């Protein structure tokens, strides 16, 4: 039996906009398996980022259950969610969230500093992950001096350094040209092979969905499996 890593059960999310309540996600049900790459596509404002943030434990649903690698996020307090974000699930923001004043090393070691990992171990793991993604030659370079693709890889290295079960990437290829975007997807595929990480990629580019194991479309708050549809085309 396949190992379910992310389970969404009847998840609803509403935002207050002034006096109005906007229902962003409606009755979301989905299960994501260990080691699969899943694409989520949808128009701007359809709730893709909200869905990722729910899985990451950055926000809480109004209704429904989210279970990530065995942890029911509803059952955790704020400190528990912080622990999940540090060790179980990694979220890569759309603008990468790389700190320009820091070097590549300092950016990548950040989750380990939060976790209280000792210096020797931090150095070892940063070296490993940077060698893996091919950025070790830039280890002491400030990230503001890097290209968009390199900054993207720093963000991926930082997300990977704690070897999470789930990697969530919000529009990881939005600011990259097509060839660089393909390299990023290739890197995600290698990560999946080598670490059995479940990877969820939010994208507005439908071409990328063909490169995923499964794809979903988010429209009007509803999540629909679009894998079949795309493969039939």
């Amino acid at each position, binding site marked *: 039996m396949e190992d379910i890593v992310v389970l969404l059960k009847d998840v609803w999310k509403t935002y207050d906009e002034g006096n109005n309540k906007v229902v962003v996600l409606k009755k979301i049900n989905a299960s994501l398996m260990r080691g699969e790459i899943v694409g989520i596509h949808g128009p701007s404002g359809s709730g893709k980022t909200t869905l990722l943030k729910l899985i990451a434990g*950055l926000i809480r649903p109004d209704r429904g259950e989210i279970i990530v690698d065995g942890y029911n996020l509803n059952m955790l307090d*704020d400190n528990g969610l912080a*622990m999940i974000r540090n060790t179980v699930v990694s979220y890569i923001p759309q603008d990468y969230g790389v700190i320009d004043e820091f070097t590549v090393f300092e950016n990548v070691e950040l989750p380990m500093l939060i976790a209280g990992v000792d210096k020797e171990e931090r150095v070892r793991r940063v070296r490993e992950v940077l060698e893996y993604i091919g950025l070790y030659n830039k280890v002491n370079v400030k990230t503001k001096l890097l290209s968009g693709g390199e900054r993207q890889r720093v963000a991926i290295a930082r997300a990977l350094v704690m070897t999470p079960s789930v990697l969530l990437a919000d529009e990881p290829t939005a600011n990259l040209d097509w060839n660089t975007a393909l390299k990023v997807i290739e890197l995600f595929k290698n990560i999946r092979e080598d670490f059995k990480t479940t990877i969820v990629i939010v994208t507005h580019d439908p071409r990328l969905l063909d490169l995923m194991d499964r794809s979903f479309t988010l429209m009007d708050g509803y999540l629909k499996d679009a894998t079949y549809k795309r493969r039939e085309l």
Partner: protein
Amino acid sequence: MGSNILMIFVKVVTRGSGLKVSAIVSINLLVILLFRNNALTPYLTMLLSMVASAAIIIIDFRLHSLLLYVLHVYGSRPNTVRILISLYSLLIASILSLPYLAIDLMSFSSALTSTFLIALSTLSLIYKNVRGGTSITF
């Protein structure tokens, strides 16, 4: 709060705001030296400190928001983030107040001290609230 998080905090403050704060404190000290006999000097240095604090908050807004956001995303406990926000505002306010405190030691004025402390506290509070909101909604 772990010493590691404190290390990140110190790095960001020194790299992001260190130079700016040093420059402002130096200018303030220069003003004190040049106009030490002028009765308006304490008020001038106080004004400089206020404006400088506001300027630094505005200039470094993105860097600090980003740091707090990244710490939040990668698993810092909510209380740690809140403490960092408070620490930062306190640190900036304290450093920028050094020139004023220097002059205050020479000519103590309780009214001026009170005004100064109230102004600094207000500024710190504004900063803290802005950061608090930002770290969640960024």
